[in-house]
């Protein structure tokens, strides 16, 4: 498998404005030097808690947000080298503008968390799903409607749903409409931003099954952002854990959940409630509150809450290194 998308030293900061004239008082370092490679055809999970930057990362790599620095290499054929040298400029989408950005949108799409707010309440469903076809001048009118109907079949909707408004559907169905909209231009890369978090538990499973089927049918690559670790464990091939804007661990899904190495990952996994009253999980309760991403601690960002913090952790930031085959950690313990 070769990478379809690689980010190098990606940074996205949000300025904090305050005072009378709105001067820049500081920055929220939402995504701070993130290096990740996503392989073509895989489901790459990105987990972390609120404020860790996973949603910002997802939106930045598809250029909904403009990165402050760093590179995003994207090749829909999936033939990037694992560590692209800086000369591969033609694949770098970090600095793209208007025209080229628009054609990028045919290949990279996003499905949002809340299907009630991600669909225009005043547009008919068929117009919502057909809009990308019209914008990219692929087709329109009857031809577009035919394509919408064909895609409806794949996502589990019916022809009588065409001329309805989003509010007439259930949460699960709305999410399917959002998925159809994302897939109508046959993109190769989809960011799924917590797509099952706002949906009922019983519907979740059917959506996850749908994602799997569509991936095989259409050869898609997913970046699956979630805070629901049980879903990530079941669906994803590889998983990265983020904390306060940085990646702290990356590994294959099974390996990560069986042998978490980073103290934060261990604490995170131990916090998941198990649906079995007999097993009592030994819980690692983290002390203190998650710090604000505007003022991250020096050195290793996790050190104030880490039970195994050493002196070096306070001053030096650990680098993401491969400590086991295909298992990378950013921690001074290794």
């Amino acid at each position, binding site marked *: 498998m070769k990478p379809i998308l690689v980010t190098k030293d990606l940074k996205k900061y949000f300025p904090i404005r305050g005072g009378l004239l709105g001067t820049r008082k500081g920055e929220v370092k939402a995504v701070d030097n993130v290096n990740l490679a996503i392989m073509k055809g895989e489901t790459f999970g990105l987990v972390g808690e609120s404020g860790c930057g996973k949603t910002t990362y997802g939106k930045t790599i598809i250029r909904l947000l403009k990165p402050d620095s760093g590179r995003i290499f994207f090749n829909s054929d999936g033939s990037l080298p694992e560590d692209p040298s800086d000369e591969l400029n033609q694949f770098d989408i970090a600095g793209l503008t208007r025209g080229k950005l628009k054609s990028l949108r045919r290949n990279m799409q996003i499905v949002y968390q809340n299907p009630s707010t991600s669909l225009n309440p005043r547009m008919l469903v068929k117009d919502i799903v057909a809009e990308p076809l019209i914008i990219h001048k692929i087709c329109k009118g009857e031809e577009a409607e035919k394509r919408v109907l064909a895609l409806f079949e794949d996502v589990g909707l019916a022809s009588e749903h065409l001329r309805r408004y989003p509010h007439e559907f259930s949460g699960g169905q709305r999410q399917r409409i959002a998925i159809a909209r994302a897939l109508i231009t046959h993109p190769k890369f989809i960011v799924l931003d917590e797509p099952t978090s706002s949906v*009922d538990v019983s519907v979740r*499973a059917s959506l996850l099954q749908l994602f799997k089927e569509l991936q095989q049918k259409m050869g898609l690559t997913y970046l699956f952002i979630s805070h629901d670790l049980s879903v990530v464990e079941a669906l994803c091939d590889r998983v990265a854990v983020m904390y306060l804007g940085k990646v702290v661990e990356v590994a294959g899904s099974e390996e990560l959940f069986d042998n978490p190495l980073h103290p934060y990952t261990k604490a995170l996994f131990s916090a998941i*409630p198990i649906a079995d009253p007999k097993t009592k999980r030994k819980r690692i309760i983290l002390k203190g509150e998650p710090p604000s991403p505007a003022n991250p601690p020096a050195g290793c960002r996790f050190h104030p809450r880490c039970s195994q913090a050493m002196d070096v952790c306070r001053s030096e930031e650990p680098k993401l290194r491969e400590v086991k085959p295909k298992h990378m950690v950013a921690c001074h313990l290794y």
Partner: protein
Amino acid sequence: MPAQVLGENEQLKVEDLVVRFYTYEGIVKAVEKAKLTLMKGETLGVVGETGSGKSVTALTIMALTPTPGKVEGGHIYFKGTTGETVDVLSLKEAGLLKIRGKEISMIFQEPNAALDPLFKVGDQIAEAILAHRLPEMLEKANQLKKEKANNSSFLKSLPILRNRSRDKLLQQVVRKEILELLRLMEISDPERVIDAYPHELSGGMQQRIVIATALACSPTLLLADEPTTNLDVTVQAQILDLITRLKRRFGSSIIYITHDMGVIAEICDRVAVMYAGSVVEVAPVLEIFKTPLHPYTKALLESIPRPGSSFKSIPGTVPNLVTPPSGCRFHPRCYHAMEKCSREIPELKEISKGHCVACFLYGDA
């Protein structure tokens, strides 16, 4: 009010509760003859999805049914600290004011929606304390005043200023109480938090404040409506831990509403499963995971994603509660549906000790 309605150890009994919402689209039959029993000191989990009626039931226990909902039948028997059994639905406003916040408290899903953004967090907890524990606080203030009486100046004993100094002492007493409460919530810097506004606090912290407000008057019954759903998983772990410890300290019974079976497995003693407005199964927590009886419960447990296995979902969708299915409301989605299921509504029956199901597959219905 027959005193024997509630057994020795029973704290709350919801009997045949019917709640309907009168909306433009029609009459939503949100809760249809729901039955629940809560024992003293236990944590009862209520599991259900959208439209199950779990939140409406919880709000109705405090007689706070949201408009346009109307309670159209049933009883909610509650035995508080007075030992007297009352039917919450028959109480008037005066009686309800005595119960809400004092005997029965509630914590909600969205902490920042439960806290008033205009007031400091300490003031909001104080509101709860002053509403129900005013005599106790005044007593303490008076005591404090007596201790200071020897040092008080002539000025302070003047009638005009007497109340001011008394109020200041009252403030001190209440503030001390709140700081104590915050420490109990495992907040490490209560001095800073007590004067903070809700938006200055994180989600987990806000939820602790909501819990503090709810526990300020040591209620006998705590209703928790998905209090950790919107929180990060590590924060959720902290809050669940806190709730368990507080329960031991205060001795309250808890009704914990959630859709997360993992949370249920962790903190609940007994579990009630609700679907489309009625309770379909009730059992002790070990049993409900080991031997779920109702087809819906089984399907719900199977839909929990597990690595390696395919994803099993429940076919169909939650029914439209304006025109619910006839008979058992789950029958259109049930693999085991029989002809009877579309005609009659199954009653909640005890099949084995402590384990009740509402399904024609079990018992002679």
